[in-house]
């Protein structure tokens, strides 16, 4: 992992990889993230940089890899998945977050989006299934509960080594 991280840095900083921060544009060239529709959210969630430019230090990089590895528990994966899906960072998944999430899943471009009616129907169904206290948003516990019953989550949530 250290090798892969230092490959992302420009040559002159490689000796000091532990302390350096890699800008977001470089992180996005990783093969695992390149094809991932949630790449921006992932960088935002794992980055601990103070100036909001989503750059990642080596420790952030390790964090990201350990959460996505096969040996991370389902709890951790669901916690971070919740943060990744929470587009406006308000701690709950409301309708707008869900809409953005579905649009990310179906792909970029106009023709790949669901129509408004379909989106409404879909969001309605999702909330019906997962919103237990019926407040119109999904909080962390509800998310973890619904994801723990989902058989595909642990299977899909891992990156290759």
């Amino acid at each position, binding site marked *: 992992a250290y090798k892969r991280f230092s490959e992302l840095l420009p040559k002159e900083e490689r000796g000091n990889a532990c302390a350096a921060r890699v800008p977001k544009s470089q992180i996005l060239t990783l093969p695992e993230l390149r094809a991932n529709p949630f790449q921006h959210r992932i960088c935002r969630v794992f980055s601990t940089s103070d100036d909001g430019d989503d750059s990642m230090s080596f420790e952030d990089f390790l964090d990201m890899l350990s959460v996505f590895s096969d040996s991370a528990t389902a709890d951790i994966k669901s916690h971070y998945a919740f943060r990744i899906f929470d587009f406006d960072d308000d701690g709950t998944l409301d309708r707008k977050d*869900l809409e953005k999430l579905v649009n990310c899943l179906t792909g970029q471009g106009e023709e790949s989006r669901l129509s408004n009616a*379909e989106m409404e129907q879909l969001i309605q169904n*999702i909330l019906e299934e997962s919103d237990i206290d019926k407040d119109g948003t999904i909080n962390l516990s509800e998310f973890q509960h619904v994801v723990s019953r989902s058989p*595909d989550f642990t299977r*899909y949530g891992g*990156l290759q080594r």
Partner: protein
Amino acid sequence: EVLVPEEPRAAAPVGFLQELPSYQSALRRRAAAGGTQGRRAAAQGSAGLRAAEARGPEQDGGELAARPARELPLSIAEKRILRDCQQADIKYLSAWKQWKRTSSKSLKKGLSEVKEFSSYLELWRHDIHSIEGKFGTGIQSYFSFLRFLVLLNFIIFILMFSFVTLPTIVSKYGIFNSSLAKIPPENIEPHCTVYKPGGNKGLVYFYAYLKDLLSGTGFLEVTRLFYGYYTIDEAWFSTLRYNLPLAYLLATFAYLALSLIWIIKRSVEGFKQNLVHDEDQFQSYCNKVFAGWDFCITDPNAARLKHRSLQYELQTDLEEERLKRKIADRTMKEKLRIYSLRIFINIIVIAVLSGCFYSIYRATVFSLENSIDISNTNSQANLLVQYLPSMVITLANFIAPQIFSFLIRFEDYSPAFEIRLTLMRCVFVRLANIGVLLFSLWSQISYCATDECKACGYNYELYPCWESEVGQEMYKLMIFDFIIILAVTLFVDFPRKLLVTHCSCKPVQWCGLQEFRISDNVLEIIYGQTICWIGTFFSPLLPAIATIKYFIIFYIKKISLIHTCKPAARPIRASSSNFFFLVVLLIGLLLAFIPLGISIAHIPSSKACGPFRSFNTSWAVVPDTVLGFPTGLQQVLHAIASEAFAVPFFMVVCLIMFYFIALAGAHKRVVEQLREQLVMVRFDPLF
């Protein structure tokens, strides 16, 4: 300062959520497993991350046993601080507790290292991982299934080899002071015992060897491959008597039981999930949206296809829901029309099936009658005649699914149900074809016109060693299946790919590359596995052939997938497909029990060859052995097999089952009540 784990930012009614049964049992599980949940993090960086020890139990009042820092969703800096706090706390514990903690820590670490090392020993780990990355987990589940079958067949082969073939080899060559004993059977008509297998003597053409290899006759018939070789009644190792007939029978039961247990164990996980989800839709929206993206995908093309498939899936599901609402609004007249149409189409389906079965029956009878008449000089025709049943079965297996998928369009079911019904029909066709073949074999073998024949119990003139005959049929089926898979890949898939890449005319491009049809491929290998299970009793070395066959098929399919297939537009989900494959495999296994049961217990064993010469049927060796036990043990065994034991046992099992069903119903009701409570809590702050 001490940094506490991040609180989830939404507060309020979360407390009641923790009373849900699923959450409670998750907590209980976590507390019981303690720190063994923490596994090695993938990153091995210079930051030197170590899992902090779980806190001692006396520091925990609440439900959550403290977890290793690895399991907490914090960033590395925060985890370091937490670990330092926990290390500081350790100093306040007694020496005994410290030692306990360090030893359990090293034990856990050792266990996780062993687990990781054993995962490196897994067969084809890297291949399957790379397939998963490029084509998704649905196709990966097919290859894992194939790997499972390779292992299963290998274990069955080891079992049969060590208990049946090895003693014969050892005693034949006299190693360890061993010897054979062939006891001539008493009370048997002499004409039943005449058996002259054709083994090639003298100068023969090379072609004859090839023909024998392909059809199991000739020189192959007298080898250890077939039942007829094991005409040994007991083997003596110095002073130990090894009862080969009993070993043969028990090894058969053992491999069937082993397969059953292993398959059930593997399918239990999938079943648990199905049972839990039965109130929601089989593949609910949340599952699709939250767990929809396959993070293993690294290729942008694959990503684009995944986007499109997700979009397609969501749209289909929403459409299906709208369709369901429409169906609920159907009028009586429409319902009548649709039901009568469905009945009509089912009649057509049954007609197609009967056509298949009848043609298989006629082909088998024809092949059996004529393969013995035609002399060896007419070799090519003979080979074709011998393979006629296999060819007819393969043809039926190919045509029937096409007809079914054409017919089902008229039946107006929802798309998901259409897929399932077609699959069920295909499964039925494939497995029933084998059944019909065996039935026609037996009708020929047991057909007795003369008195002499009735004395033997089977057609001794044509089939003096009928078990070898059946073994040969199974052998031919297996070889032909393998040849077909090879031929289809070489002569259909690759030319199609060449055609599509080099020829740009419209119809060719519209046809396009083929998709990797998971269900068809899975049914193919399940069909092969059922043949292997049935055939192993008649041909003890057949599992070895099956192992090699599946081993080669893995590489063939992998190459064909990578070079000639495009990813499917409508992917099957991995979770549901695993369970489906195992259920169909289980059906195949249970179906294999029937012919084996009939041939072991009902049809008289051949008196001219094989280990069961001195017995009426193959099963008769068991009562015979039981009679040799001490009387106490005999009485116990008789008691267990009697009705006085079986009926109460059955009733107790039913009672236990009813208890669990009632428990499940009660849990469901509790869940409903808790849900209502949660909703009410939001409106009533004093609740």
